[in-house]
């Protein structure tokens, strides 16, 4: 995710809030075909999975000399105001509403936060989501590839992915993986 950095930027008045900020986010997904060891993962890079039933805390990979998120850095747990920006995400597998708290930097189109936890989640067919956003078809299957990477797809797009060279190790029904995901993070399904 790209952040425009300006250390001398003029900010609006800072404020204190007593309720978490709710925003949108997309994740990658890893886990076993039986639904065990299921974890949300950031879509960018080999970073740590999101823990179950405890807050994710931002850490800056660039330096240990500031608390994430820092105004002059790109660090922090990212989220957006709308789902449209998320359609440009690399390989989204899960879409969700997320609560943000602690130190939160509001940007023009989203946020970077110190702490976060998902509130509602659902699997998305990544090709449908790229093409039609929230109005895409729900996934029918989840293809489990190398390193337990999970790719939810609708039936037509599974055919497309295989034609373009995807060779999943296993294909399982999406409904079971989605149930395991919701149970693991103890959240409800995101309504369409």
């Amino acid at each position, binding site marked *: 995710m790209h952040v425009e950095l300006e250390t001398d930027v003029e900010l609006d008045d800072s404020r204190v809030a*007593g309720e978490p900020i709710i925003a949108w986010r997309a994740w990658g997904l890893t886990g076993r075909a039986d639904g065990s060891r299921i974890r949300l993962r950031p879509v960018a890079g080999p970073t740590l999975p999101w823990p179950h039933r405890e807050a994710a805390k931002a850490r800056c990979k660039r330096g240990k000399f500031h608390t994430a998120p820092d105004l002059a850095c790109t660090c922090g747990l990212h989220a957006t105001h709308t789902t449209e920006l998320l359609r440009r995400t690399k390989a989204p597998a899960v879409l969700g509403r997320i609560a943000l708290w602690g130190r939160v930097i509001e940007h023009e189109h989203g946020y970077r936060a110190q702490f976060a936890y998902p509130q509602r989640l659902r699997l998305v067919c990544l090709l449908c989501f790229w093409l039609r956003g929230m109005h895409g078809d729900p996934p029918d299957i989840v293809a489990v590839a190398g390193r337990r990477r999970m790719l939810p797809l609708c039936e037509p797009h599974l055919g497309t992915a295989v034609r373009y060279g995807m060779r999943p190790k296993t294909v399982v029904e999406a409904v079971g993986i989605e149930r395991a995901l919701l149970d693991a993070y103890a959240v409800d399904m995101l309504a369409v």
Partner: protein
Amino acid sequence: MNIGRPKRIIEVEPAQLPVPETLPEPLPVSEPDREPIPADASR
């Protein structure tokens, strides 16, 4: 993806954390009381 320029810093201090509490271990369920089966019930 570009979330644009920073606008403001917000310090969010929720009274209650939006994280589900860890579910407690389920309590052992006792067997329901049953009427004793008469010795000649199958007859």
